[in-house]
């Protein structure tokens, strides 16, 4: 069992519980390789996917994980919800609670919204991304993917490249990786790196080549085009030039390096197609591990019975 009732973030989350989740995820990963990919672990449990912000892959990944575990699921997205009609967050939460559900998977644009939700509902709350705060399930699947390749996390050199300032993926990865003993460097333009990031025990670099020399794995984060208009970086051309991961750059270093990306990718900007589709990229393994990790999280938090 896990120490905490909810999974809201990896800041302060017990390392042993992260390891338990990853280990459990590997056993679910085996299930996903079977011809019949469904287990009855969460039969009779009801889970609501509450998405106040657009998401394709995270929502599908959660939904698949729930279906593979035989849970009943309901999807609820901002565009179809009464939130559009001005209903308060509290009312939405209380209505869900009144319907007797076991867990809520929530994505929300506001940091802290999942914690806020725990104050109004008894159900287990899983954070599927809250603003630029945390995205713990993404970090767990990233770490699982690293463990799959390297057999361990401790001592690995992991670089997060790109927009660190607005990335919940970066923050959760930093907390998780540090908890499990990895070395973390963040790399990007100073305008996209938060000023106090050093307090989290990471190294800051603005030199991608130096980072490539150092790293065992690069986790390349998506650049959001709307950041360009407000002067956080001057142009796509310049970004690609300085921080784009492409074959020529990787070839110069002549070293083995694992490439990760949480998706969705901007091919040709932060990552070139040739790199994304290369053998060293484990981007699609991340996607599969995402389903396995979320199965593990749901299973452990909802106290499902042992498989079969």
């Amino acid at each position: 069992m896990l120490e905490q009732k909810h999974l809201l973030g990896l800041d302060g989350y017990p390392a042993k519980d992260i390891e338990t989740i990853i280990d459990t995820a590997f056993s679910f990963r085996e299930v996903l390789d079977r011809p019949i990919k469904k287990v009855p672990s969460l039969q009779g449990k009801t889970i609501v996917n509450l998405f106040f912000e657009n998401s394709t892959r995270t929502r599908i990944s959660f939904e698949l994980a729930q279906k593979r575990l035989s849970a009943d699921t309901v999807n609820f997205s901002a565009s179809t919800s009464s939130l559009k009609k001005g209903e308060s967050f509290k009312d939405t939460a209380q209505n869900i609670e009144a319907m007797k559900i076991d867990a809520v998977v929530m994505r929300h644009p506001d940091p802290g919204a999942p914690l806020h939700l725990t104050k109004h509902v008894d159900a287990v709350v899983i954070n599927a991304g809250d603003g630029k705060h945390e995205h713990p399930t993404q970090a767990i699947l990233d770490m699982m993917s690293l463990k799959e390749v390297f057999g361990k996390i401790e001592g690995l050199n992991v670089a997060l490249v790109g927009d660190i300032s607005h990335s919940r993926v970066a923050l959760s990865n930093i907390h998780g990786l540090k908890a499990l003993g990895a070395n973390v460097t963040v790399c990007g333009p100073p305008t996209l790196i938060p000023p106090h990031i050093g307090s989290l025990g990471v190294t800051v670099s603005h030199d991608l080549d130096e980072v490539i020399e150092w790293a065992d794995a690069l986790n390349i984060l998506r650049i959001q085009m709307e950041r360009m208009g407000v002067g956080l970086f001057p142009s796509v051309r310049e970004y690609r030039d300085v921080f784009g991961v492409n074959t020529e750059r990787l070839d110069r270093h002549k070293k083995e390096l694992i490439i990760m990306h949480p998706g969705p990718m901007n091919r040709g900007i932060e990552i070139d197609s040739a790199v994304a589709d290369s053998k060293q990229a484990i981007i699609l393994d991340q996607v599969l591990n995402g389903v396995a990790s979320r199965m593990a999280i749901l299973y452990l938090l909802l106290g499902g019975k042992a498989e079969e």
Partner: protein
Amino acid sequence: MKIRKLPKTTFLKGGTVLDPLKETSAKKDVLIVNGKIKSVGKGKAPASSEVVDCTGKVITHGFCDVHVHFREPGREDKETLQTGSRAALAGGFTRVCVMPNTDPPLDSPESIRFIAEKAEDCPVHIHPIGAVTKGQKGSEITEMSAMVREGAVAFSDDGIPIANAAVMRRALEYASMLGKPIINHAEDLDLRDDGVMHEGEMSLKLGLDGNPALAESLMVLRDLDLAKLASAFVHIPHVSTRESVQHIVVAKKGGTPVSAEVSPHHLYFNDTALNSYNTNFKVAPPLREEADRKALVKGIVSGTIDCIATDHAPHTIEEKEATFVNAPFGMIGLESCFGAVHTVLMKEKQMTLANIVKLMTVNPRNIMGFETDLFKTGTEAELTVLDPKESWTFDEDSIYSRSKNSPYIGEIFTGKVDSVITKGNITDL
């Protein structure tokens, strides 16, 4: 809370009279006749007088707050002059200055008159602060002279910084003719951007947009230099950063006519209080980091900061129940002020009660030009009776404001207001 008419002759017996103006403290009795101070000294209660036993208590000037929001007109669901007055009394305040960011704002002689007239029926003295610019839009200055005639005691576009330095200069120059301070909410809005809390390690961890300390201190520096240029009186509200304190030190040394206030919450909390995203801690300027809080305490002790002002800012439960990003800025502070300030300053700096009381009585009255010799014979009785040793827990029942957005719920304070005498009434808490 029980507000009742002061008997014709009232005798406050057995307490310690703390005069923050004369800086004296002695066991004395106070005789009040027809609502006015008759004598302060040792004596017998005249026959037919009501004796109020003040044994073990401290009798001092009624507190004065130069920065509150009573939301009238426009947001009477949050607070009114009447409900705000009760919150003031609960905090030992007999006199408050209300900010003009109402709806509509107090930007004309007529709206100042509206407040002044309504204030007459309130159980505390209420003085309106007029807007600096019409509609608080930051461009055209208001009819300050006529507004002063109707009762405006200072000018501020509070909540909205005066971004244009030329407008700020003209406002300072014009108000100097009237001898009234300009109070500018110092915050560079471009630097603040979407910031909802102090920019630092905590904002990074919480994933909330940060408001850098520089957003405040840059504008404080600008305002101090403009005041120097205009030879005009500027009052810096709710100082929250160590850099601002430094700028004020330099300005005061250079002779700039400046006064400054600090809010109780900036002395009492730091940004780690936001750990649970409790929206009652969301305030502008934001709770800063520990080094800033310490600098503010030091600024108080050294006299760089002149007074305590609560920035009492009521908001409805519905608004504060939103997520942190969406909730409005502001917290109530009148009821908790003395307890919080006394607790934190006694604990950390071993300040005397007299010094602390001065920050809430003589100093703010000086800034606004109010009478400061409140034990003088013939003065209208405006007194607060304190029990400085009483330990108590601040809870929902301690709140008299129409809104409940206090960050102090559950805090244990030392020092409590016992009763308040003002406007011919005595209020027992």
